C-alpha cells in the first residue's frame, strides 16, 4: 500500500517536473547523461570503469573530458578530476564548470590511483574522471593490475562511474574501452567547440554491458 503511494507520488512528480527528471545524470536505465552526444550514444553506465585510449597527441582526450565536466556541471553536479600530470587549464574549462569541480593535482600515476581509491571509497561524488594520458608508459606499467581490479570492485560496490584517459590499452579490468580516433589541426583552433565535438570519434573496443548489468542487479 505504502509502496504504491510512493510510486504514484514519483509518477506525479515526473509528470509535473519532466525536465528535472530528464536532467538526472543516471537516467532510468542507469546511464550517465554527460551532455556529450558521442558518449551518451554509447551509454556510459552507472557503476562502470571506462577506459578511453588516446594513442597519439591531440586526438581529443582533453576535449572529451572538458565537455563531460562542463555537461555534468550544467546539471548541477559536482565532479572529480584526478589529473595525473597536473595539466588541466582552468581557463579552457570555464569558470562555471570550475565551480563544481574537485581538481586533484597529482604528479605521478601512483598518486592518482591512491586518490581515486580514497574518493571512490568516500562515495560522495559519483563521477570521477582520471587523466593519465601524459603519464609515461614506464610509470603506468608500474601500476599493478590488482589496483585496477580493486578500483573496479569499489565502483561496482558504490555505483560510481570512473572514466580514465590513458595513452595505451592499460586497464584489463575495464568494463568499457573506447579508442579515440580523431585528428585535429591548427585550423581547428578557430572552429566553434560544438563543431569540434561532432568530429570527436569514439570507437568501442570492449564493452561488458551484460556482465556489468548482471553484476549490478545481483
Amino acid at each position, binding site marked *: 500500500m505504502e509502496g504504491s503511494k510512493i510510486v504514484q507520488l514519483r509518477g506525479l512528480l515526473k509528470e509535473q*517536473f519532466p525536465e*528535472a527528471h530528464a*536532467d538526472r545524470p543516471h537516467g532510468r536505465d542507469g546511464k550517465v547523461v554527460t551532455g556529450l552526444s558521442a558518449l551518451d550514444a554509447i551509454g556510459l553506465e552507472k557503476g562502470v570503469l571506462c577506459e578511453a585510449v588516446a594513442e*597519439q*597527441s*591531440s*586526438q*581529443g*582526450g*582533453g*576535449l572529451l573530458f572538458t565537455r563531460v565536466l562542463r555537461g555534468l556541471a550544467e546539471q*548541477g*553536479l*559536482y565532479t572529480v578530476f584526478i589529473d595525473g*600530470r*597536473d*595539466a*588541466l*587549464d*582552468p*581557463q*579552457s*574549462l*570555464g*569558470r*562555471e564548470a*570550475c*565551480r*563544481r*569541480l*574537485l*581538481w*586533484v*593535482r*597529482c604528479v605521478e600515476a601512483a*598518486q592518482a590511483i*591512491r*586518490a581515486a581509491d*580514497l*574518493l571512490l*571509497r*568516500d*562515495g*560522495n*561524488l559519483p563521477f570521477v574522471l582520471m*587523466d593519465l594520458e*601524459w603519464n609515461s608508459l614506464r610509470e603506468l606499467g608500474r601500476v599493478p593490475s590488482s589496483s585496477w581490479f580493486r578500483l573496479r570492485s569499489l565502483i561496482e560496490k558504490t555505483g560510481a562511474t570512473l572514466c580514465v584517459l590513458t595513452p595505451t590499452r592499460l586497464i584489463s579490468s575495464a568494463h568499457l574501452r573506447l579508442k579515440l580516433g580523431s*585528428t*585535429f*589541426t*591548427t*585550423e*581547428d*583552433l*578557430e*572552429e*566553434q*567547440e*560544438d563543431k*569540434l565535438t561532432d568530429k570527436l570519434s569514439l570507437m568501442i573496443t570492449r564493452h561488458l554491458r551484460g556482465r556489468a548489468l548482471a553484476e549490478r542487479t545481483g
Partner: protein
Amino acid sequence: MYGVLVIPNFFLQAQLRIQTELWKLPVVLLEEASKGNKDRGKARILQATKAALNAGVDLGMTATQGQARCGELQVLYRSSEDEKTAEAMLLDRIDLWTPDFEATAPGVCTLDLLGNGEARRSPERLGKKMVRLFAEHGLQAQVGFASHPGVALLAARQAAPVLVVGAVGMEEVAFLNQLPVQALMPSADLQEVLRLWGVSTLGQLRALPASELVERLGPEVMALIEGTQSRRRRLLKLVRPPSLFLQQMEFEHPVETLEPLLFVIRRMLETLAARLAAVHLMAGEIYLTLGFEDETTHERNFRVPDPSREVDLLFRILHTYLENFTAETPMVLLALEAMPSRALAHQFELFESSLRDPNRFSETLARLEALLGEDRVGTPEPLATHRPDAFVMKPFQEISRTDQSRRRSKKPTPLEAARQAAADTIRLGLPLRRFRPPERITVMTEKQGPIAILSGQVQGPVTQQRGPWLLSGEWWHDALWAFKEWDVQLEDGGVYRIAEVEKNQWILVGAYG
C-alpha cells in the same frame, strides 16, 4: 523568594559613577545619537540629578529649555560604552548571590534567591549588603524582595533602599493596594483616564470589575494588573556566561610519538562531547594547539562541515591531520577547543544534489591533502586577468556552500547574465592542457617563425603554424610579463602551444586536444 535590584537613573549613574562629585550639581543626560548631529539642539532630557530637578528642570525638555531654567545646568550625553561597563559590572557582582538571575532591563536585575539561605533568613540584611557593595562601585541601588518577580520589581522601585514584601515584611496585598498607579508605569493616556476616574492606587484599580475594565480601557490595563498577580508568574530569562569548551593538558614528560597524544585527544574529545551534549550543541569547529619544548606553538583550525559531537568523527579529523604532522622538538602542551554550533538544518531544493556525508567528504579531502599537499586539492578559480595560467585554488567545500547560498539569494543582474551568456556560448578551439612547469625547448626558426622543435619531450618538424600572438601585461609593476606565443602542429599530428619568452628562449606551454 525573588529579589530585584534596580539602579534608578541607570544611564546617568553609569556616567557619574566615576565623577561622584557631580551628583550634587544640576546635571542632565541627553540621548547619545544627537551628539554632533545638526539636531543636537532638539535632544530631550532623559535623566537628571536631584539638584537639576529642584532647579525646575523637567524630563523631556530640550537642553536649551533646561538651561533657561537653570543657568548652571551641565549637559551630558548618553555613552553606550559607560553603560556597557556598568551593566557588565552589575551582572558580574550579582553572580555573588545567585547563579540564576535575569537582566530584566538596563540597570534592573531579577534574582531567583530560592537557594540562598540568607535571603530566607534575613532578606533585609542581604539587601543592605547589596546596596553597600554597589555603593562602593559608585552605583546607588534599590532592592526589593517578594515571592513574585513582578511584585519584587514594584517593591524595588518603592524601596529606600531595601523593601521586603511578603512573609517577613509588609503583607503583599497591603503593599499592592496602597501602591500608586504610576508605579506600574502605565501609558500617559491610561494614566490620564485613571486620574479622571479618581483611581489613584492599585487597590482601587483592582477593586473594579476586570472584564468591564478591559472593555473600556483595552488590554493594557489587564496586563498591568496581571503583572502583579502571583498566579501569573513568569519564567526568568536567565543570564548564562558564554561557555568555553576547552581542554588543556601540560605533559609532565615531553611526548615524542603519536599514540600517547591520540590517547589523550580521545579522552579530551569525550569530555568536550559530553559537555556539548549537556547544552544540546554540536562542535562546528575545533582548534588544536600544540606546544613544544622550544617554546614554539602550532595551531590549526578544523571545520566540521556538518556540526557534530560524535567522538569518533571528531577524532578521525584530528587523527588524519596528525598522522602526517612532524615537529622538530617533543611536545609539552596540548589544547583542544570546540566552538559550539547548532546542528545544521538542511532545506534542499526539490531536485538539488548535495554531498551525502559532508563530514566523511571533509575527512577524505584531508587525506588527499596529506597525500598530495595543501594546494593540490580543491576548486580552481580562474583570475580576471589575461596572464596565462592565472588561477587560485579554493577549498572545495567553501565554494559549494557559497554556490548554494548564492543560488538562494538573488537572480543575476542583466549585465551579469549577459556576461555569463557570452562566456557560455562563445567557445572556440580545442582545450589546452598545460605542462607545469613549462619545459625549456630549442626551436629552429626561419623568418622569425618556428620550423622545428629540436629538443624536449616533443620534437619534430613543424607542419603548420599560427602566430605570433603577442601577449603582455602588468607592465605597471615588477610582475610584468611579455612573450610571443605560437600554435604549431608537428609531424606526429600533435598540436602544441609554444612561446618565446626572450630572444631565442622558448618554452613548451601545452598541448591542444
